């Protein structure tokens, strides 16, 4: 009988052992000063092409490494976005934007752009802008 009791006591201890604390301490608050979204984001229509341009202040340019350009999925409401281009700061300083050519005529495309800081954290994204390609 004593062995039986010991067996049950061991089971209870095992069960209580299974109640160990695994969630640790409360996660610390996340605070990070991310780069702001590019301003005056515009799309200019061209023949089978779209030209994207945006402004970014020199102070923020100094903190940025590159820009990400995304296209918005036209078939999903609220849409997923897919990266289509990366512009280095040097490229941006030269062109102040980028151009997509060889696109289908009379089609609407929506884009989103953002800046990436020197530690690789992508900043706020600009509101999506849309443009329609034209035929020559």
């Amino acid at each position: 009988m004593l062995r039986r009791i010991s067996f049950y006591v061991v089971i209870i201890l095992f069960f209580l052992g299974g109640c160990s604390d695994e969630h640790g301490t409360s996660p610390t608050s996340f605070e990070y000063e991310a780069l702001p979204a590019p301003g005056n984001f515009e799309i200019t229509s061209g023949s089978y092409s779209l030209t994207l341009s945006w402004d970014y202040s020199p102070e923020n340019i100094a903190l940025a490494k590159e820009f990400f350009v995304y296209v918005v999925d036209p078939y999903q409401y609220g849409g997923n976005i897919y990266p289509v281009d990366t512009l280095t700061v040097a490229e941006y300083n030269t062109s102040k934007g980028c151009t997509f050519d060889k696109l289908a005529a009379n089609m609407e495309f929506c884009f989103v752009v953002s800046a990436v800081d020197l530690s690789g954290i992508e900043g706020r994204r600009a509101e999506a802008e849309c443009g329609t390609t034209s035929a020559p």
Partner: protein
Amino acid sequence: MRLVTVILLTILFFSSAVCSAPVDGVVYSTLFPGWGQMKTGRYGRGTLFMGTELIALTGLVIANIQYDRDVEALEYSSQLFKNATYIGDLEYYSKQMKDKWKDADKMDSYRKVLAGAAIGIWAISLIDMIWGSDAEEVPISMEINKNEFLITKSFKF
């Protein structure tokens, strides 16, 4: 010296109580609260101890399963947070991590309360078996007379 006397008297009192208690009932109550009470004919108390113990243990198992799920969700959010590079994702997963941690912490508190309740019921059941039992009482008795017999079933609550 006074402390030693108190301890010795307590041991003496406890051991005398244990010795005078029905051994089978104590053993059964050790195995599961209320079982010993049932065995000694106190069905009301037995049902109460068994019922509350079952509720506490069931709640404990459910809280434990939910806790494990919350911890898994917390670890998943933590992994997504570590892999995120976009500030929007970082903020979102950080908030999600906090929410999941709060859920896990709440479930952990429930688990501790329920484990405490289960152990408490077990202890009370044992104490009741040792001090509160009436070993003389026979749950079923039969009295045979000349032309009749009488079966008596007694219940204690």
